[in-house]
């Protein structure tokens, strides 16, 4: 059992991070905390991608020709590239989310989800700022 | 039988649909608006009449307009069964139009334009169903009629009217989507086509080894789906729809809605399943017993109704089942009587409803118990009522006698003696709920208030004349049954 956990520690880390993020998304009412949760959630996936690109005995995927080594084993570079794209996406999502939060704060004076819903319930249908 | 390609049936359907435009446009000029209605009604009747000669010569007239999906087309085919229905409907539309004008103007109803628009639309749907060449086309017009009549029933726009209209819509739309549509799909899966075939569409393909359970379930779905035929337990929309103005009730009960229901039953029994398949499966007898239950129960309920229109409504439910029983006897006379009863009941019942409207307009009476001695003030109306009522009871010399005669003969031909008894008991019950009205109207004592009330007088001529015409027709058909039966014989030629 211990070995099972220890062998796949990279997955476990990803899972734990993912659950932390997921918890924040679902349970927190503060919108900024939700965004932070989303970020943790996405980061866990990035780590997962990076960890699966590791090849046993491999080195960083930069081409080199050391003396005396006929064959060099490289890590798989493709997941790195993919995750670079995913990080860009994640940053943009965060930016948009924070932008929306700013707007929400301007309109409602709060960034707590339940408060916003309450205000909206009491005095709906106002034009946005 | 040779089929003549012709657009005439399409024109017959379109006339009243196109008439909607001028009716709507001339909404600010009632006389012009009514002129369009009458014109469309007359043109429609003439077009339908023009279809008689080719049919007498043994042709059918029709056209396939377009194919919507493979094996499912939108097309018309006029055979004599459809023509009987169309002739009846378009003829009665002319009368009902005049009557409506008189009725609506006397009562100064609101929203008359919507009323006439929907009226024209319903007639298009009726004629469309009469001339439909296949189940699919028929289904479209069946639904269209439901939708066109909804505003008519809700016309008063009171809560009660909306309630009645809502029940009407739920019953008819609900059953047609939940039962009729699956039945049509099942037919398509089994036969690969939806065309009406002499002798039965499914009978032609039944040799492919369709299980009899499947066919019985299919038939049950059809019967449940055609709630317009008002077979119990799917009848209660009809009394609820009584909130509509009287001309609409007349249209519902005599011309369009319920008659379309039984017409579809006829089509399903004769042209989808076919006499042979029906008797092989034994479902004809079952349906006969099932519907005779409705005949008796509805008659008994009618006895207890004080509201004139409710009593007539239950009478309609009972009379419709005559037609269903007649066709499910699967004997020549039975089917003949059944088709004849469509026409006879139409004329008799529209007479009665016209009378009910005349009572509402002329005397503001809505209940049987108020009618005491009314014959003194409204002799013509009561005479007309007597004709219609005696016809429905089945006494000579009124046409109701003819159809009952055939129905009785048919039940004996089929060897179903209990059904013959049902017809007789029901005739007795009919007498029980119609004769008291006649009795109190003629021999009852008129109340002092009514005696003095100068407002109680005969309804306007615009209403009275159509009533007289339908009453005359009730008697005429008895003496000259050939005008109807020759067409019926033509229809049954290919089946028996």
């Amino acid at each position, binding site marked *: 059992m211990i070995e099972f956990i220890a062998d796949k520690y990279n997955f476990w880390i990803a899972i734990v991070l993912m659950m932390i993020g997921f918890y924040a*998304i679902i349970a927190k009412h503060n919108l900024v905390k939700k965004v932070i949760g*989303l970020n943790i959630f996405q980061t866990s996936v990035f780590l997962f991608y990076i960890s699966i690109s590791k090849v046993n005995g491999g080195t960083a995927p930069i081409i080199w020709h050391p003396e005396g080594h006929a064959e060099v084993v490289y890590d798989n570079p493709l997941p790195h590239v993919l995750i670079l794209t995913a990080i860009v996406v994640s940053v943009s999502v965060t930016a948009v989310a924070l932008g929306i939060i700013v707007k929400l704060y301007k309109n409602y004076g709060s960034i707590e989800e339940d408060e916003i819903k309450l205000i909206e319930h009491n005095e709906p249908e106002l034009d946005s700022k | 039988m040779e089929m003549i390609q012709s657009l005439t049936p399409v024109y017959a359907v379109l006339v009243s649909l196109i008439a909607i435009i001028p009716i709507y446009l001339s909404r600010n000029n009632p006389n012009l608006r009514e002129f369009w209605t009458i014109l469309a009604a007359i043109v429609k009747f003439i077009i339908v009449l023009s279809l008689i000669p080719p049919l007498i010569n043994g042709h059918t007239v029709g056209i396939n307009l377009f194919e919507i*999906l493979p094996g499912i087309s939108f097309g018309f085919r006029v055979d004599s069964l459809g023509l009987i229905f169309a002739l009846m409907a378009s003829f009665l539309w002319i009368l009902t139009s005049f009557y409506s004008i008189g009725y609506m103007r006397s009562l100064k109803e609101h929203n008359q334009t919507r009323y006439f628009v929907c009226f024209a639309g319903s007639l298009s749907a009726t004629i469309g169903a009469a001339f439909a060449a296949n189940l699919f086309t028929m289904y479209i017009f069946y639904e269209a009629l439901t939708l066109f009549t909804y505003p008519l029933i809700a016309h008063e726009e009171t809560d009660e009217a909306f309630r009645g209209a809502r029940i009407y819509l739920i019953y008819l739309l609900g059953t047609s989507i939940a039962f009729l549509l699956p039945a049509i*799909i099942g037919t398509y899966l089994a036969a690969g086509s939806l065309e009406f075939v002499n002798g039965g569409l499914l009978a032609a393909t039944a040799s492919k080894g369709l299980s009899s359970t499947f066919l019985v379930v299919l038939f049950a779905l059809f019967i449940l789906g055609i709630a317009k035929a008002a077979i119990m337990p799917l009848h209660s929309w009809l009394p609820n729809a009584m909130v509509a103005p009287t001309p609409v009730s007349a249209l519902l009960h005599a011309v369009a809605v319920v008659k379309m229901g039984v017409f579809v039953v006829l089509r399903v029994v004769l042209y989808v399943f076919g006499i042979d398949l029906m008797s092989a499966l034994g479902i004809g007898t079952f349906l006969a017993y099932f519907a005779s239950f409705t005949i008796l129960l509805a008659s008994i309920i009618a006895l207890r109704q004080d509201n004139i229109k409710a009593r007539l409504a239950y009478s309609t439910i009972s009379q419709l089942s005559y037609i269903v029983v007649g066709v499910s006897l699967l004997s020549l006379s039975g089917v003949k009587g059944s088709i004849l009863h469509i026409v006879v009941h139409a004329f008799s019942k529209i007479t009665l409803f016209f009378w009910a409207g005349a009572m509402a307009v002329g005397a503001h009476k809505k209940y049987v118990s108020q009618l005491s001695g009314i014959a003194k003030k409204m002799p013509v109306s009561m005479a007309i009522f007597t004709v219609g009522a005696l016809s429905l009871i089945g006494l000579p010399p009124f046409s109701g006698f003819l159809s009952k005669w055939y129905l009785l003969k048919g039940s004996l031909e089929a060897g179903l003696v209990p059904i013959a008894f049902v017809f007789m008991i029901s005739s007795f019950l009919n007498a029980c709920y119609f004769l008291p009205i006649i009795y109190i109207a003629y021999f009852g004592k008129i109340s002092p208030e009514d005696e003095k009330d100068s407002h109680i007088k005969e309804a306007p001529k615009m209403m009275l004349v159509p009533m007289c015409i339908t009453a005359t027709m009730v008697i005429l058909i008895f003496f000259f049954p050939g005008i109807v039966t020759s067409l019926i014989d033509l229809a049954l030629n290919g089946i028996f």
Partner: protein
Amino acid sequence: MIDFFTTHAPVLTIVVFIFGALLAPVFGRINNSLSYYCALITTALSFVLSVYLLFSVYNNAPLEYFLGGWKPPYGIEYRVDILNSFILSVVSFVSFLSVIYGYGSIKSEIYEKRHPAFYSVYLLFIGGMMGILITNDIFNMYVFLEITSLAGYALIAMGRTRYSYMASFNYLILGSVGATFFLIGIGYLYMQTGTLNLTDLAQRLQGHFDTNVVLVAIAFIVVGLMLKMAVFPLHFWLPDAYTYSPSVISAAMAGTSTKVAAYLLIRLMYTIFGIQAGFSGINFSGIIIVIASITILAGSIIAISQTDLKKMLAFSSIGQIGYILIGTAMVNKYAFAGGLLHILNHAMMKTALFMVAGGFFYKFTSTKINDLKGMGRQMPFASAMFLILSLSMVGIPLTVGFISKWYIILGAAQSGYWIVVPVILLSSLLTAIYFGRVVHNLFFKDSEASNTGILHAKIPYSMVSSTAVLVFLCIFFGVFAYMPVEISLKAAENIIGAMPWK
């Protein structure tokens, strides 16, 4: 010149959007209306290209286009077959009509200075969807999915009410979670096979369907996409998003975005997971059919209790997505064609319905069902269109709604999924109830004093004409259904007939 267009048509369908999105704000600096024409021309161009692609793949073999000349599996491949070119045409057509519609409604609903940005984001939104549809590379799909979602968040936030921001934020959180799930699934698939090209993936996955890695991948992908599709019970973002966004965006989104997510699932189910070949011991079809049935009923039932027209339409959309899923999951030619037809039909109906709702909003700044009393008199044309569309939604023959339901039921009966038939019929009844309520208010109630606040006296022609075109097509394709039916049947044959690893 023509030659250039025809050879590069697959990539051009996306490139036009990227250029359009870049140019719109630039033109906007000169004049606001220039950016409108930029959006109009872009969407029109993409519609022409999509239809060209549809005709060319309908008559010939599927088109393969290698981006930058790199052969797969190394480079990104764009692949056009009948299935995706059909949906491409639908999406570009709806987006084109929405732009026309927007000429009137955007002016009243979005602040003047935001117009250029709006058009730019709108083009990215549509362009992202075109990318999802056309690419044959699973990671590329993820990137386009995020592009379109990001643009979508921004568009919803441009709604007039302040609650639009909240709706947008909720969608952002849930949408990102869904997309991240999709990303995890891709990671697992890559772990198993080392490739991202769909064709290549399909080949390499052969024989590995019972490994846990692939099963986990499938689970993540399906759940992630169902979130994007707003399948019950993952639908929470959708009603608010549709209700509080500008009318144009409600219309365009209802017609496109969930359908594109549905396409994504269909494509992956058939092309790489091989649902048609009896997938690895799990009854994949059965599971999806059950979920879809629940979605259909739940969406319809919740729609009945709504008081806001747009929200009611949104819940109705949730139910209708179920039709698309149920049809395509049955692995039957007719049912698949029915599901595919429903993508087209529902896109037309729901877009038009949201357009009509936008018309009501334009005139009275309200879409509450109770405020619509007596509209039949005040806006007869719009109300009549609403009536026709309602009939189509219920599935009355001679309208498009009937055609797709017919094929789905036919397929269900053929493949023995009898349970589907009562579900569809029941939902038709429920649809009749909730649309009946609105129609009743439109035509049979007298207008109340409270809704006399008329904002605009007259609805602009741009709004009326684009809606009328869709309503006309709803009837036209209901009567002359041949063309779409033929196309979708052929697409169904191609995709069901082809084993994924051959």
